């Protein structure tokens, strides 16, 4: 504003309506990925809302307190939290440009994530085996949709992790790979944030009397 006024009063240089110091957002990719995560957040909000509405509609079937096993969930939560911190260690190694240790931490992260998925699939198959599948009641439908969508995200994260490890081993820690690793870092930590909501809202509050 003041610059424009000065230019007009000075009249020595042509009139301009834009600021010279303007520049692009430096890391547009990370901002864009953040916006994707926020839209993903809305998907989960809708699923949480559906569970909040339907979570107590048992239709004569098993209730949450009867079918949900907290020790399994506690173990699952531990795995996911540890995988978050190990990915953090991988990012730290990436900043130091140490490829070997970074890959090692990524492997650990992947194994913890795979353990999480394995436990969740075991839980799901157990539920279906005892007749508490997604078609049994509105509670189980919303439960399987919410927890399953989160599990699907973690699975996609694992695939992405493996792809990135292949890329890093082929091309090294080039700027493009670092950018991708930072995007996956945000994705992975975001999934842990969603899981905090899941274990609190679905499991812990579900088994309360």
């Amino acid at each position, binding site marked *: 504003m003041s610059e424009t006024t000065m230019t007009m009063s000075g009249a020595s240089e042509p009139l301009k309506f834009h600021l010279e110091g303007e520049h692009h*957002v430096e890391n547009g990719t990370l901002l864009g990925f*953040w916006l994707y995560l926020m839209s993903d957040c*809305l998907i989960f909000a809708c699923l949480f809302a559906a569970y909040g509405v339907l979570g107590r509609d048992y239709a004569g079937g098993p209730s949450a307190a009867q079918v949900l096993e907290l020790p399994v969930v506690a173990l699952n*939560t531990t795995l996911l939290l540890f995988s978050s*911190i190990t990915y953090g260690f991988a990012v730290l190694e990436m900043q130091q440009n140490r490829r070997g240790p970074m890959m090692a931490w990524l492997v650990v992260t992947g194994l913890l994530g795979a353990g999480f998925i394995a436990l969740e699939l075991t839980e799901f198959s157990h539920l279906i085996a005892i007749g508490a599948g997604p078609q049994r009641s509105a509670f189980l439908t919303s439960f399987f949709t919410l927890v399953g969508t989160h599990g699907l995200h973690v699975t996609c994260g694992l695939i992405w992790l493996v792809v990135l490890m292949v890329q890093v081993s082929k091309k090294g820690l080039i700027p493009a790979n*670092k*950018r991708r690793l930072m995007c996956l870092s*945000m994705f992975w930590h975001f999934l842990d944030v969603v899981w905090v909501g899941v274990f*609190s809202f679905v499991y812990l509050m579900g088994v309360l009397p």
Partner: protein
Amino acid sequence: MSEHIEAQHGHDEHDEHDGVSQVHATLKGYLRGFMLAAILTIIPFSLVMTGAFAKSGPADALILFLAAIQIVVHMVYFLHMNTKSEGGWNMLALVFTIVLVVITLSGSIWIMFHLNDNMMPAAMQDPRNLP
């Protein structure tokens, strides 16, 4: 906060255009976040698993409160959120999302709760009143 954000500098001053150099994670930050998250996870799990809660009302509130704190911890220490990152656009998007999430959740639960109440007339619930 030990993260160093370089928000205001021109294109010529830095060699990488990947933007990764702008976020500097630290070991201390990750460990602190991990410890806080672990504590905030252990408290509600132990309370529920030992059966310390007799009634669900206050327990629900406590669990949701601890979850909210833990989400903030994750955002700050793991996702490196602050008001400066991306020139504030990250925070703006987050605030907008939180508004939408709150409307979606509270609106759905509130409306559907009353709808459930209203859909079933009191007279219908008692079989003796059925025609």
